[in-house]
């Protein structure tokens, strides 16, 4: 039997996008919650919960982009052109956010500027990611081997909705992360945020899920056809289970449960999205096989990936383990 390399790679790319969302999501969320902490010591702690790991988290975004170029070059070129504006905005926002980790310690007078750059950059980057996602779900017009649509196609009520939904969702992840990594007043505040954003995220997921099937007949067919209809029942149910665990964990004062429950919501939503998409890479016209690079490219990169990816997951886990535990005021890396 022939190995279906494009299929395997679609799975790997999906995995790295998911890894990005799971890892950088809370990291951006922490940035968005940052302005709500007013005291200097609190801000230091909040930032330090992510300072040693943010770079690794963001590398998944590079893998998503670089990987796409390597294995689905046509998708890379069509999607990145179509989403030109939101992506450029995201990149610029990530510049502001990324440098703040170091710059803010280098100055006293201009510290407030880098505080703004950290939280503003996180917010704008998230919004842009959400808008880009919404625009992709909606579908991208293709002509020949290039993007065929207009310059503002990405901006629609739906993409704005997904933009805000992602802001809520990442903030939820950030709040739960802070619940896990901090204590005292910082944690109490984070817990309150988790309540609000948890409810709001649930609402947003519901809204987006209800609209999505009607954007594209293929999505709708997928959701009501046998056997995929099973997923249409199971996935939302499992989301509800996660929401229940989230609120239960918050109620009982658990440190970790809210974080993992909130991540569960994201993973499930992502799976739901995957079900709608498959087998398209650029809905509604290009499938995984249309955009794939030749097998020789896919094979060459796959050999190394199968070896390197477990290694990466291993040492990433190690880095998280080194920085395990609570980050306390006045303690830690400073």
């Amino acid at each position, binding site marked *: 039997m022939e190995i279906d390399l494009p299929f395997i790679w679609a799975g790997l790319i999906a995995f790295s996008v998911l890894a990005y969302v799971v890892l950088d999501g809370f990291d951006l969320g922490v940035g968005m919650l940052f302005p709500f902490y007013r005291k200097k010591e609190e801000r230091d702690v909040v930032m330090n919960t992510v*300072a*040693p*790991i943010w*770079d*690794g988290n*963001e*590398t998944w*975004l*590079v*893998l998503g*982009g670089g990987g796409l*170029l*390597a*294995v689905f*070059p*046509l998708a*890379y*070129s*069509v999607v*990145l*052109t179509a989403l*030109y*504006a939101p992506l*450029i905005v995201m*990149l*610029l926002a990530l*510049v*502001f956010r*990324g*440098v703040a*980790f*170091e*710059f803010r*310690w*280098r100055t006293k007078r201009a510290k407030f500027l880098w505080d703004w*750059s950290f939280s503003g950059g996180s917010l704008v980057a998230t919004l842009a990611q959400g808008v880009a996602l919404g625009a992709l779900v909606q579908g991208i017009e293709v002509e020949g*081997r290039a*993007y065929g649509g207009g310059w503002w196609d990405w901006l629609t009520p739906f993409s704005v909705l997904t933009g805000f939904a992602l802001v809520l969702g990442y903030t939820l992840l950030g709040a739960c992360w802070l619940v896990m990594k901090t204590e005292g007043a910082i944690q109490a505040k984070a817990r309150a945020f988790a309540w609000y954003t948890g409810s709001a995220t649930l609402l947003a997921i519901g809204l987006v899920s209800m609209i999505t099937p009607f954007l594209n007949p293929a999505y709708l067919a997928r959701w009501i056809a046998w056997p995929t209809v099973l997923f249409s029942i199971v996935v939302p149910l499992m989301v509800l289970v996660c929401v229940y665990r989230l609120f239960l964990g918050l109620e009982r004062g658990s440190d970790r449960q809210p974080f993992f429950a909130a991540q569960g919501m994201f993973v499930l939503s992502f799976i739901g999205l995957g079900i709608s998409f498959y087998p398209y890479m650029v809905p509604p016209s290009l499938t995984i096989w249309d955009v794939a*690079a*030749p097998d*020789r*490219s896919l094979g*060459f*990169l796959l050999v*190394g*990936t199968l070896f*390197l*990816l477990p290694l*990466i997951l291993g*040492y*990433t886990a*190690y*880095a998280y383990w*080194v*920085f395990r535990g609570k980050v306390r005021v*006045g*303690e*830690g*890396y*400073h």
Partner: protein
Amino acid sequence: MFLGYEALDLARFQFAFTVSAHIFFPAFTIGLASFLAVLEALWLKTRDDAYMKVFDYWKTIFAVTFGMGVVSGIVMAYQFGTNWSVFSDKAGPVIGPLMGYEVLSAFFLEAGFLGIMLFGLDRVGPRLHFLATAVVAVGTLLSAFWILSANSWMHTPAGFEMNEAGQFVPADWWAVVFNPSFPYRFVHMVLAAYLTTAFVVGAVGGWHLLREPANRGARIMFSMAMWMALITAPAQVIVGDLHGLNTLEHQPAKIAAMEGHYETRRGAPLILFGIPDDAAETVHAEVSIPKLGSYILTHRWDGEVKGLKEWPPADRPSAELIFWTFRIMVAIGFAMAVIGLWGGLARLRGRLYEARWLMRALVLMGPSGFLAVLCGWITTEVGRQPWTVYGLLRTADSVSPIAAPAVGASLIGFMVVYLAVFGAGTFYIIRLMGKSPDTPEDIGILGPTRSAGITPVAGLLDRLIRSG
């Protein structure tokens, strides 16, 4: 059109601007990462705290630079798709996997261990911490390996076929990765990064030695930098020459433009100065040494050297810029070699730490590595024009179907943001370099790099807040 420019010109300028901004940071971090690893190894071996102080001093600077390298690099990874989508579609199957390997083998490695290197000494202990530092250094070199392989393939494509969709498809990966110009470019760039770092470190050491001749940390910096310059600067001149000869074989038009040769000649002169004029196809106000050009390029006094007129105008690179950038790079290369030898001589006489003129020269030359790197890249890339994949895919056929206003607006965005943000970063770095390496309270305390317990943080923080 946007302010009178076509989308193509704007896309080119945007790429040139963002990648030029980016290369400043790798040029420094590649060398600095290795320097830090050596410092920590020396500390582990001797347990002399002076090394640790120097390590902390540069670690803080490294962290700031690295952060800027990361954010400007992420922009690059997406630029290929946003601005050069046709190129991405066509060349993606070949250069994409190379960049994929860069992410998998280098970026994750750097990012994963950077946190431990910056914040983890107390948590993992000195030995594992050293390992983290060394791994970060290896990561930067691996990153250079893959990205330069991708870039070199665009200059000297090899090991590929074309498919029906007009894409380049790999036929022989070994030939792709080790394409003809890659070994030269890799060695030349790594040496360039080491030299850039050596001159910055040497300049900072020299600056402080001029003020405090007994400063131990500054002596370590100065001495180590001078060793580095002594070894790598002459090596760079030789490697650069070999690189040029290789380019002559594969991209003779680029060499013709660099040398300012429009006519094909036997016994061609070496043009030292002059003003190349592409329209008139001549060099004005030329100052040259007869026959030397032929000798350098062919190693024979009457060897034939091709001029730009060999190629139809549509296939020629412009000589007007790279004639100069090439000369600036080479001049800096020779100046660095002279300084390296000067330092070696002073050391031989046992007067390295009294060589005040040498220190002044180093302070002056501190930023020269960056200038040489930038000039080198401009020579290489502009000399490749009008092609993206040399001889096969034209730049004009590589650009995305984007509207000029979209590129123009994003170009302005990049310029404003980069100038503001990286300008601030450069300012902070220079300020960090202004602090004396021997006053412990100045080191690292300002930042997240010093762990609690080693110094009475709270009191020092207070002082700093008042002073900074």
